[in-house]
């Protein structure tokens, strides 16, 4: 059945909170950048479980319970995390890398790294600086090396809240459980009309946050970049040979760098300079 819903890469879904209209409103705003006409959607519902005890709200997927919380709003972050996993696991078109990313002048800047490296923080900073948003979690490539945007809500961890005080969610909900562990921020809250379009990767950057370290951007050889990118590719071991060839094609066309982040503003300045420079001048990833 064709209906209005949302799409997380190829994972189609609808979401409803029939007993909590304010939560439903919050969710609609949160996933606005992923709005789509869907035909084969999974249905997520926030419902009271009827159980006594502290966890009397449930998040159900197609009728099956997948999470519980003490309030409907406490299920917002679990839903975002669940959708990340579903989006990543259902992507079979090509490599899908653990990376944030933005678009500048039609080319993608990819920030590939494991957890806690500062991908979301950098992505948010770059969107604030004028780049368009692809994702803060996964760069999904098709077989031709084109990135499909995955404009999920940015999931900002407490350690970065002080860098974006203007992004603190203020929803009209009974409790703050929707933002206690992580802020889920729609990209529109950073900048209007900031969702990027499908593109190829022009730059691949491997960021690493180091408190107090001098912020520095340096080129890396493409062979080194390929190995690093493979390490940050979901399900690489399942079909490593094919994925390595596809990742090599992606790396071959990109300028590759390593970034130590001590200061967000300086890191964003360096990256904006990188993408503003003529590609020939930055083509030093070898």
């Amino acid at each position, binding site marked *: 059945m064709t209906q209005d819903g949302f799409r997380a890469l190829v994972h189609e879904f609808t979401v409803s909170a029939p007993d909590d209209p304010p939560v439903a409103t919050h969710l609609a705003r949160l996933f606005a950048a992923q709005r789509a006409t869907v035909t084969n959607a999974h249905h997520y519902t926030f419902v009271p479980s009827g159980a006594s005890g502290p966890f009397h709200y449930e998040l159900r997927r197609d009728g099956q319970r997948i999470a519980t919380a003490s309030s409907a709003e406490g299920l917002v972050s679990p839903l975002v995390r669940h959708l990340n996993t579903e989006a990543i696991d259902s992507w079979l078109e090509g490599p899908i890398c653990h990376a944030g990313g933005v678009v500048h002048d039609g080319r993608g800047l990819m920030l590939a790294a494991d957890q806690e490296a500062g991908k979301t923080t950098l992505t948010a900073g770059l969107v604030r600086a004028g780049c368009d948003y692809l994702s803060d979690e996964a760069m999904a490539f098709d077989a031709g090396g084109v990135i499909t945007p995955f404009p999920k809500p940015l999931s900002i961890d407490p350690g970065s809240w002080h860098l974006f005080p203007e992004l603190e969610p203020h929803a009209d909900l009974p409790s703050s459980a929707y933002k206690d562990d992580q802020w889920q921020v729609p990209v529109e809250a950073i900048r209007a009309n900031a969702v990027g379009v499908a593109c190829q990767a022009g730059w691949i950057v491997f960021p690493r946050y180091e408190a107090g370290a001098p912020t520095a951007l340096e080129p890396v*050889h*493409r*062979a*080194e970049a*390929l*190995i690093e990118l*493979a*390490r940050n590719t979901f399900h*690489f*071991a399942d079909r*490593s*040979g094919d994925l*390595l*060839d596809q990742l*090599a094609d992606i*790396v*071959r066309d990109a300028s590759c760098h390593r970034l130590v982040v001590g200061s967000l503003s300086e890191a964003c300045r360096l990256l904006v300079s990188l993408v503003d420079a003529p590609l020939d001048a930055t083509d030093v990833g*070898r």
Partner: protein
Amino acid sequence: MTGAQRLPPYEPTAHDVPRPAPAVHTVELDGEAVLLDTHVNRLHRLNPTATLLWRCLDGNTSIATLAIEIATAFDAPTDVVLADALVVLAHLGSEGLLSW
């Protein structure tokens, strides 16, 4: 990518005729090879010199002959090339990347 497989050390001689192990998948970027051992999902990066040697491993040519060909092409002493090649191939063999 995963834990290293413990293999006996490979001590090549000039008469050996090594070739890439069947499970090894190779891509090359800017003159550097990246080798994927699909048995253990482990990646290796070769420098340009080792990449050149790797490209020459056809399974028909002995290490001694390869050393002569490379030495001739690069106008280098054959004994030095042979010694270097044996060191590189010992390392690659011990990582499970060669058959011989």
